[in-house]
C-alpha cells in the first residue's frame, strides 16, 4: 500500500458543445499494476471518459493527473504537447477497438512493433528486429509473419499486433477501448487470455472500457458502472458483478445470457 498512485481522476466532467453530457463528476485513483474496468451501454459516457483520461479530450471540469516519471503527479492537460506525445509513445498505450486506428497498415508487423523503439532512439536494426520478433511471439504471431503487412492479417491478429506495438515500450498504463469488439467469439477468448497474461506478467496498469462483462470479469480488478455519464456503482469486479447494488447494475448483470 506504500506505492503512490499512477493515475488520478477528480471530478472529471465533459459537456459537449450542444449541452449534451459526455461524462459527469467521475473520480477514481488507479495504482500501478491495477486494472480498472468501465462498463455501460453505448452512450453511457465511457468512451468520452476514456478520451478525457487518455489526454485526447480536455474535460470541461475536473482534472486528470498522472505520475510522470521523475516528476510526480502531473496534470495531464497541463503538460506541453510534446511531453504528452512522448508519454503516448512511451509510458502510455492505447488499444483501439479498430486496429486500423492503432496500426500503420502500410508498414510491416515488425516495423509497427519496432516504431516505438525507434521513436525513443533505438538505432540498431538487429536489436529492434529481435525485440519485435519477441513481442510478436508473445502475442502469438508467427515469426514468419514479421515482414507481412497488417492488412493481410485477420482481425484478431491485427488486434494482437496492435497490442505488441504498444507493449514493446513497456508502458505503465494502457487504455483499452472495447479491445475485443468486432472479433469472433473464439478469437475474443484467445485475446482476453493473452491480455490477462500480459497484464499480470508485466504488472502494467490498465483502464478497460467495454460493454462486455466477460471482458472485465477476466481482466479487471475493479469495476465502475456508468450510466448517462455518471458512475452509478463501483467496487471490486466480482462484488459488482455478483452482488450489484444499483438498479442499473442489476439490470446490466441480469441481462447477460448465461452460457
Amino acid at each position, binding site marked *: 500500500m506504500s506505492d503512490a498512485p499512477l493515475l488520478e481522476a477528480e471530478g472529471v466532467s465533459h459537456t459537449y458543445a450542444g449541452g449534451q453530457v459526455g461524462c459527469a463528476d467521475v473520480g477514481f485513483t488507479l495504482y500501478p499494476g491495477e486494472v480498472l474496468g468501465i462498463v455501460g451501454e453505448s452512450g453511457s459516457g465511457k468512451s468520452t471518459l476514456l478520451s478525457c483520461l487518455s489526454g485526447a479530450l480536455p474535460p470541461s471540469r475536473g482534472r486528470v493527473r498522472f505520475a510522470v516519471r521523475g516528476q510526480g503527479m502531473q496534470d495531464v492537460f497541463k503538460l506541453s*504537447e510534446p511531453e504528452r506525445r512522448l508519454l503516448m509513445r512511451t509510458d502510455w498505450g492505447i488499444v483501439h477497438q479498430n486496429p486500423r486506428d492503432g496500426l500503420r497498415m*502500410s508498414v510491416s508487423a515488425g516495423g509497427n512493433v519496432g516504431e*516505438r523503439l525507434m521513436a525513443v532512439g533505438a538505432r*540498431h*536494426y538487429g536489436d529492434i528486429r529481435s525485440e519485435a520478433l519477441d513481442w510478436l511471439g508473445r502475442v502469438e504471431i508467427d515469426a514468419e509473419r514479421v515482414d507481412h503487412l497488417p492488412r493481410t492479417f485477420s482481425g484478431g491478429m491485427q488486434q494482437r499486433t496492435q497490442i505488441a506495438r504498444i507493449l514493446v515500450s513497456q508502458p505503465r498504463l494502457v487504455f483499452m477501448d472495447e479491445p475485443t469488439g468486432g472479433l469472433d467469439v473464439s478469437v475474443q477468448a484467445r485475446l482476453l487470455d493473452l491480455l490477462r497474461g500480459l497484464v499480470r506478467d508485466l504488472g502494467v496498469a490498465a483502464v478497460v472500457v467495454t460493454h462486455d462483462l466477460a471482458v472485465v470479469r477476466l481482466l479487471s480488478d475493479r469495476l465502475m458502472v456508468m450510466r448517462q455519464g455518471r458512475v452509478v456503482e463501483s467496487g471490486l469486479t466480482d462484488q459488482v458483478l455478483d452482488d450489484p447494488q444499483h438498479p442499473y447494475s442489476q439490470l446490466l448483470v441480469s441481462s447477460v445470457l448465461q452460457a
Partner: protein
Amino acid sequence: MSTLQPAGSGAQFHSIDGVYNFAYLDEQTKRMIRRALLKAVAIPGYQVPFGGREMPVAYGWGTGGMQVTASILGVDDVLKVIDQGADDTTNAVSIRRFFNRTAGVPVTEATTEATVIQTRHRIPEKTLREDQVIVYQVPMPEPLRKLEPRETETRKMHAFAEYGLMQVKLYEDISRHGEITTTYDYPVEVNARYMMAPSPIPKFDNPKMHAMPALQLFGAGREKRIYAIPPYTKVRSLDFNDYPFEPQQFEDPCALCDAKGVFLDEVILDDKGDHMFVCSDSDHCRDRRAEGHMGPRAREAAEKGYGADE
C-alpha cells in the same frame, strides 16, 4: 564550355526583350521569396511555406527551383542549369534559355564559372565554393509524407523532432530487401535537428551536402515550400548502427574520362545490348577529357581513329 554573353547590355532591371520584369517575377514576389529564403537559412532544414506563383511551365518541371533562382539572381550572376547531371537535356536547356531571355544573365555549362547552379537530381562532381549557390528543384519536400499522410501530423513531428517514423522507413527497406534500398531522395538530418528530403538526388551525392562551402537552397513549386542548408552545415544521412549509410559505388571508371569515385550513368550503345558507364556530370567529364584523361572506350575509339562520344 562557352559562356553566353547577354544579348543586350544595360538591361539591369528588365528582361532583354522588355516584356517581363528582370528574371520574370515581379519585385514584390521576389522580396517575399527572399524573406522565406532568409527564414529557411536561419532554420536549416525547416520547410518554409511561401506564396508560390504560377510559372510559365508545368509543375514538375522545376517551378520551385525557378522561383528561388529568379529571386536570388542578380545582373552579375552566371547561371548553370543541370538536369540529371547534364547541361544539355530539354529541361536544363529550357530553364537556361528562360533566364537568359528574362534576366539577360550569362549562362554557362562550366561548374567553376557559375555563381548560381539550378539542379534537378544531381550535385556537380566538382566541389562547390563559398561564392556559389546551388538551387535544387524539389518535387516532394516532406520526407515523412509517404508514411504519414496527414500534414497536421507531420508538422508536429517536425516541431517536436519526432523522427522515429523516418527510421521505420529504413527498417522496412532492410527487412524486405536485406539492405537500405532507398537510393535517391535519401533522408538526411540537417544541423542535428530537422529531417529533410534532399530532393531526388542519388544517395551518392548525400555526402557532398555535408559541410558544403556553397549555400544550398531548395524550392518545391507544387507544395509551395522552401528550405535551405547554409554553408558548412552538418548533414547526416540516416542509418542504423548495424546498417550504416553507404553511397553507391561503381566498380569501373567512366568509360570516356576514366574518372573514379563519380556518379555514372549507363548508356545503351546499340540494340544488341552493348552499353557503357559514363559520368552523369557531363561538364566534369568534358573537363577531364580536355585534360587528357581517357577511359577504356575513349582509348578504344582513339585507337580506331574516331571520337567515342560522336
